[in-house]
């Protein structure tokens, strides 16, 4: 329908108007090397990444525009040669070019737009594949939710996936605009390839209820123990995307304008969180005795294979944006220039989501677990929450300044990364926490934590037998970067410092209770950061060379020490833009 409207708007005038074509594009080669050796999972389900080349990519970007006085068609896409052979699982694959030399397309934009629709000056419509980039924050935009996040390439942090949508803007005066957008089909976020490593982190149980979470971990750990030797592995993930129905359509509205010297905007979005949230773990038993090739005493009787179902909870987002400049020192220092500021705040109301834990009949030898659902024993019954309805904030506040001719500095405080969701943060001290790591406690008395105790009092086993590392669901980060530019050469250095504390909770047998210790960002336990240096030289012809590194620092339970980030990498890039 939108296309018809647009076509009607365009057809008459377009026939008589001159079409102006524009072409642009780029050729780009990216080579990256992963430095860290990453090992996750036990010998029976290892997930690892050896040091080596992790990206060997050639890309051609094309941008083509066709413009008349009242309309424009625009195409912006990448053709990417992946540089690594695909999985070669048959002789046939060896004779298939797309397996040996795989490629892909990324269509960022492919839309038509018309201006001053129906003769109403300022009324514009755009229909088609597009990216709508709202929000004044630099790369951290909690109010910008229409497109799904694209985290496939960590060097393009902040990028998003194009999606088909219809956008209507009305700008009655240059300093005031009203916008409305509908997105018929939901797309989930594109996750980094190293995200697969998270499947090996079976100790991260997403349940909010701490007691139940520890109990579930204890159950898994004790089933894995020598007595039963049935370890749990995540054998797959089953994303449950919403139906492409009218009810599931995302939409958003925004009012933006300039007041004095400040740009302000209010926005509303109704749609979904684009990162997966657990909805069900279903476990089946896969008998099969096997022993560790490196230790014949270390054997298992089979695997408990879990399929993790994930969904994308609905949410509403009320957004506020402000940007401009202030000169706090202007009254004292005449040469002081104004400092640029930006503030982006999102209040998010999520849909409640619970998780179920189910299993087929599990014949484990000395005991058999009948098919069914886990007995959560929660107060009030029901299934455990992984996401309550409590509203929460995500926001970005930033300043930037230029020192002399050569130095530009940008600093931001980020409350909530794109993948973080749900109430619970450091400042409020309340809300939920996410489990980052857990381990089974050991005691001198081997009967304190064992399978027999688990079967008689499972909840107590969780409290007494599990040590866990948690952090608030919403983290706080300081992002500071600087560009040092000397003619055509730029040295960029920025760092992301995680200020979110890590809490370690364990059982104090002497005191007979659990105790928690909070580790701040400047401790060995809590330290977590990214350091990103890049040196780039732009030649006058449009050709540029750059090289640098993404250094990830932190323990495995921290944000940036997480094995799923893929660890530290170094990169080179050559690019010719035309």
């Amino acid at each position, binding site marked *: 329908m939108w296309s018809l409207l647009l076509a009607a708007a365009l057809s008459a005038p377009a026939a008589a108007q001159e079409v102006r074509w524009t072409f*642009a594009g780029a050729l780009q080669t990216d080579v990256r090397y992963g430095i860290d050796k990453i090992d996750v999972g036990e010998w029976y389900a290892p997930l690892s990444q050896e040091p080596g080349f992790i990206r060997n990519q050639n890309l051609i970007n094309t941008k083509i525009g066709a413009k008349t006085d009242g309309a424009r068609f625009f195409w912006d896409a990448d053709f990417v040669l992946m540089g690594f052979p695909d999985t070669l699982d048959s002789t046939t694959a060896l004779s298939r070019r797309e397996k040996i030399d795989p490629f892909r397309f990324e269509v960022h934009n492919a839309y038509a737009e018309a201006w001053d629709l129906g003769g109403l*000056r300022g009324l514009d419509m755009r229909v088609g594949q597009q990216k709508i980039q709202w929000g004044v924050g630099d790369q951290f935009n909690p109010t910008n939710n229409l497109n799904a996040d694209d985290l496939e390439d960590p060097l393009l942090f902040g990028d998003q996936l194009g999606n088909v949508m219809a956008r209507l803007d009305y700008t009655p005066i240059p300093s005031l605009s009203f916008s409305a957008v509908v997105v018929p089909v939901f797309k989930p976020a594109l996750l980094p390839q190293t995200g697969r490593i998270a499947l090996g982190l079976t100790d991260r149980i997403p349940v909010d209820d701490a007691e139940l979470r520890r109990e579930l971990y204890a159950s898994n750990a004790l089933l894995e123990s020598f007595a039963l030797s049935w370890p749990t592995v995540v054998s797959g993930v089953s994303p449950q995307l919403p139906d492409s129905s009218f009810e599931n359509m995302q939409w958003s509205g925004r009012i933006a304008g300039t007041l004095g010297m400040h740009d302000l905007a209010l926005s509303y979005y109704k749609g979904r969180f684009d990162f997966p949230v657990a909805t069900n773990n279903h476990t089946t038993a896969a008998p099969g005795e096997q022993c560790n090739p490196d230790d014949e005493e270390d054997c298992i009787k089979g695997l408990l294979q879990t399929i993790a179902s994930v969904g994308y909870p609905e949410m509403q987002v009320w957004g506020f944006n402000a940007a401009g400049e202030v000169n706090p020192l202007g009254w004292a220092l005449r040469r002081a220039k104004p400092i640029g500021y930006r503030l982006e705040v999102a209040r998010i109301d999520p849909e409640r989501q619970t998780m179920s834990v189910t299993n087929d009949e599990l014949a484990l030898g000395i005991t058999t677990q009948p098919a069914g659902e886990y007995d959560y024993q929660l107060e009030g019954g029901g299934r455990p929450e992984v996401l309550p309805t409590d509203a929460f904030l995500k926001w970005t506040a930033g300043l930037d300044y230029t020192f002399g001719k050569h130095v530009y500095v940008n600093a931001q405080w980020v409350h909530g990364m794109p993948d973080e969701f749900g109430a619970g943060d450091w400042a409020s001290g309340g809300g939920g926490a996410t489990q980052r790591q857990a381990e089974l406690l050991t005691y001198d008395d081997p009967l304190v934590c064992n399978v027999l105790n688990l079967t008689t009092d499972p909840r107590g086993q969780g409290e007494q037998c599990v040590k866990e590392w948690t952090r608030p669901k919403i983290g706080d980060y300081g992002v500071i970067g600087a560009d040092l530019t000397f003619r055509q050469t730029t040295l960029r250095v920025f760092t992301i410092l995680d200020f979110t504390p890590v809490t370690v909770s364990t059982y104090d047998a002497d005191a007979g209770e659990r105790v928690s210790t909070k580790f701040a960002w400047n401790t060995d336990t809590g330290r977590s950061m990214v350091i990103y240096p890049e040196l780039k030289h732009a030649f006058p012809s449009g050709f540029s060379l750059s090289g640098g590194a993404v250094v990830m620092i932190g323990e495995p339970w921290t944000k940036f020490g997480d094995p799923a980030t893929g660890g530290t990498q170094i990169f080179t890039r050559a690019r010719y833009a035309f």
Partner: protein
Amino acid sequence: MNATLRPLRALLLGLSLLPGLAWAGSGDAVLAKVDEALNRAKDTSSRMSAETVIPGQAPLKMEFTLETKGPKRMVEFQAPGDMKGTRVLVLDRRQMYVYLPAYNKVRRVASHVQSQGFMGTMFADADMSTTRFGEAWQADLKAETDAAWTLALTPKPGEETAYARLEIEVAKSNSLPSTIRYYDAKGTHLKTEVRSEYFCQGDVCQPGHFKMTDHTRKDAYTILIQKMDKLNAGLPDDRFSQRALQQGR
């Protein structure tokens, strides 16, 4: 993560300044004539090409279109390739925006970026942003011939200027600057700007050729060539808006 710091900074900023490059004076009366002549055009549309030559380095070339209306500017780069499609909107010296095609995004840019000068050229922000000399400078008539006045400019009391002194040669034929020399507080001759090849439409004249030489950098220079497409074409106000910046029309 490209913390958007990117090359914007540099480009963005100097732009505020481009169009109505102008100065002059003969005593204050001549300077007033210069200001009036510099600001006669209601709006302009032109194509600009720039070449910066620094001894021992490859020349840096740029091409862009420039539209002006009063203090407002809209700039779109055509070359080099890594800047192609980048657009800059300057509403005034404290309200600037850039559209980055790589991010499909309009970003507000604070005025401090002007400190970086204009895109690696020999033009500084202050060289290009002054459309009325008389606002910050006072002039003495230093010399006069049949063809030209030579003005010596010093800052008005209380005014903060990027240079301690200017010397401007003003052609009597059009009351516009032909040469501007820039000095620091020690009297060092820093830069020389030559404006030539003026073309006129009615009583509105614009230079077709600018050359800025920086004597502190081994006489490195930038040549800016302006080809006027339209003069006083009646550009609408909404041509200088974030909407137009996003749409690129």
